[in-house]
């Protein structure tokens, strides 16, 4: 076992992990952050997407030890500390961009990360950015519409390019 410190959703969390443990299993089993889902365990479906230093990764393929001393954002950390939903989250609600909701956490985290890199995307760019997140329910139509609307809202609120999540120490990177 190896001691590591993960800055999860703005809070430092000390945890002893098996060096072979995936970040997904440490988040879900050790830190009890079960919003992040496993849909395949092999990096194909994107349900386990989280942000490591602002970049979207498949946490099922990411060694937890590699996340040592890095800033992580999971779906639980997208809303602000006062509970206000991230515009991507509220936009998913408003556009009914979810059905079973199992791909939704990963999809939302991916979309939020994408919009931080491309605040004014075209539909095609949005579709390309989300191609690593499989959804079997929606046909993607409402998801793309929700992400486009969230992009507009982020721009309108002057938050274009903002790295999603509660950041304790990486805010300067934005």
């Amino acid at each position, binding site marked *: 076992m190896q001691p590591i410190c993960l800055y999860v959703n703005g809070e430092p969390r000390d945890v002893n992990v098996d060096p072979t443990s995936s970040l997904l299993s440490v988040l879900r089993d050790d830190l009890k952050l079960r919003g992040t889902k496993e*849909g395949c365990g092999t990096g194909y479906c994107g349900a386990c997407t989280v942000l490591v230093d602002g970049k979207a990764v498949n946490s099922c393929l990411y060694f937890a030890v590699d996340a040592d001393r890095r800033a992580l954002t999971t*779906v639980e950390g997208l809303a602000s500390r006062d509970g206000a*939903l991230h515009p991507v989250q509220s936009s998913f609600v408003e556009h*009914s961009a*979810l059905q079973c*909701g*199992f791909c939704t956490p990963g999809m939302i985290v991916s979309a939020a990360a994408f919009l931080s890199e491309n605040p004014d995307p075209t539909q095609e760019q949005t579709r390309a950015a989300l191609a690593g*997140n499989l959804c079997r329910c929606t046909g993607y139509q409402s998801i793309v*519409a929700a992400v486009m609307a969230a992009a507009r809202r982020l721009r309108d609120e002057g938050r274009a390019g903002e790295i999603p999540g509660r950041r304790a120490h990486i805010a300067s990177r934005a």
Partner: protein
Amino acid sequence: MAERSERDLRTVSTATNPDGDARPLSKSMATHSILRSAPARPAGKPEGFSVVGAALPRVDAYAKVTGEERFADDIFLPQMLFGKMLRSVVPHARLKRVDCTRALALPGVVAVATGADLPVRYGILPSSPDETVMAIDRVRYVGDPIATVVADDELTAEEALSLIDVEYEPLPAVMSIEEALREDLPQIHDNARRTNNVQKEVHLVFGEVDAGFAEADRIFEDEFFFDGNTHAPIEQHAVVAHFGADGKLTFWCSTQTPHYLHRIAAQVLELPGSHVRVIAPPIGGGFGGKTEPFAHELAAGYLARKTGRPVKICLTREEVFYAHRGRHPVKFKVKTGVKSDGTITACHLQSWLDGGAYASYGVATTYYTGALTTVTYKIPAYKFDGCRVYTNKPPCGPKRGHGTTQPRYALECQLDKIADALGLDAVEYRKRIAVDPYTTTVNGLRITSCGLRECLDAAASATGYTVKKGKLPRGRGIGVAASSYLCGAGLPIYWNPMPQSGAIVKVDRGGGVTVFCGTSDVGQGSNHMLAAIVAETLGVDVMDVRVCAGDTDLTPVDLGSYSSRVTFMAGNAAREAAVNVRQRIVAAAAQKLGILPERCALAARRVYDIDHPDDQLTFIEAAQAAEAAFGTIVGVGSYAPPKLAADYKGSGVGPSPAYSYSACVAEVDIDLETGEVTVEKLTVAHDVGRAINPAAVEGQIEGSAYMGLGEALMEEWPFRAGEHKIPNLLDYKTPTSLETPPIHAIIIETDDKEGPFGAKESGQGPLNPVIPAIANAVADALNARVYSTPITAEKILKAMDAAAGGVLRLRKPAPVAVAPV
């Protein structure tokens, strides 16, 4: 792409709340284009509804976007053990020996179970119980469970699997329909009455079939093959089982059918039904793939009892491919006789289903490949021969459209050929032969509301079908297809005279309303549907209603989320329960207001005089008055479909209290060099009866179109040397956001007289026309047809080659000259 119509996205408003209640009312967010036809409903016009017809965010949306929602795999209990299943690595063998001694000796391993521990045979259909939880003396496919280990952690359980010693005596594997029909291969299930691997044969004749063909001016005969495919919900199956000190067993299980798991778990684990409880938490997608009890669920129950500790088993993605119960590969022969104007005089449909290793729902699937043929177009004489075979592959079962998707593909492709041959417009032709509302088919199926013609008109006019068909440049094509589907199977899986769905509505003194119903929300939005129907009936906000669903101890039975039955059946049960509550609230409020009960209206959390809306009580005041007058305010409701089955063997499959109708127009662009198909747009019009929540109905239509796209172009079910070739989400191709085109969903409302608020279904029907519409668009683009799914680039090149007399393509490439070194 025209982006989805911009909606007014404010979700809540306090301004319109007339009783000054500080709680916000949910508000409709969008103006949806809904086409209504044939208003037949006497009471309550849609404009009078406040919740029904409003495109509201789902009641569970907030939990799902924040990660709050707890799926089965998110449940962790103290002292919980983790289970893993050892599965067969050979497709067909006698099991000579299973020795778990070494596995049990591994530190951390707590218990092991094998087939001998659970010998009770079961099956989802009482007529075909051919499964045991784990193999006893025979394995029948790669992936067939042999043993289950539970350990303190998942890795230990997995390691223990490698310490189980299994001795196989291999048998020849039966891997195709053709092999299953042979008489020189071993039987997968011993059956002394047969010499091959046929599981079920169906032969039905309705009307004067020979006379019908004799009367025809033209007879068309075609063969089609629809490949198998799988549901691939993003949630892998998961179960937690807990055997309490009180001797009661509880499952939390990703199941579409908690009631059937309840029944079969009690049977297989030999426990009284009163000591088994099944809770279906929110399900991460099902599409038919979680519609029957699975081996890992029953094994978890057994091992929880054996160890006294909770047991969790989550399937890996590879195991989900083996658990399967997905779309049957089906081979068809279709013979249709028509008059020179296209009128159908007779139809003979033959189907051969590749069932995989166990029966599952297969007997029903076999019937379904024939039963609904007559529900879309008028067919006066009809013959159906169906045959399901066992093969050494993962067992097939129901997938969205259960057994009707494959024949609809074959029939709609042939119909386009007929239209072309007779020089008929494919849309006008379909409209002309479409079934009429309130008629009965030749095989005795009762049709009520039917918006098929409206669906065809809407899809055609939205796309300019008639202008484009046959006139696009080579490589580009447009295709149409239509279909129908059940709104719930008219008969339950096991024969019984009880209702198919029950509901309880309870009102709290704080104004909260709870609806209890055995439904399982697999993502289709059944929880929202129940909340909306109850909220509409009681005049409260949809967010005032809590839904307690899918718990066999707490909720009345609902048979499950299959056959598109939930809105129609559970919706009607919830409506009846809410009406019972409403009557008491109205009686008490009328007395307080000093008016006749008939003058009471309920809306926006108040009860008021319809003639003097200012004379009003808040809902809370009215509910408290009702409780004071009548005692605890609880209403019950149930729904049993009308008796619809005709009197022939097999008539139980096909009847439904209503049928939904759909039409799809697909537009494709094919690269003539590579054969690659790009679907540019899918337009699907769907007769849903009434949209309880138009946003949810659009979602079902869009999801159906997407799923049909995958089945049409890429999803396949290939085996090599007895093994599934691609049991993972990378090689098993499903459309991503890139391959999925813009989808235009058009809602048609026909206001079904028996549906709750006129609603029918939208979960499955809209998928059925999509696959043949794409196939017909490809045929339009190429002037050549591919006769099987998926329509791959390779098949397109071959079809082009065949159409050109075999001279264009697939010639051996000329040897490349390589310069000597």
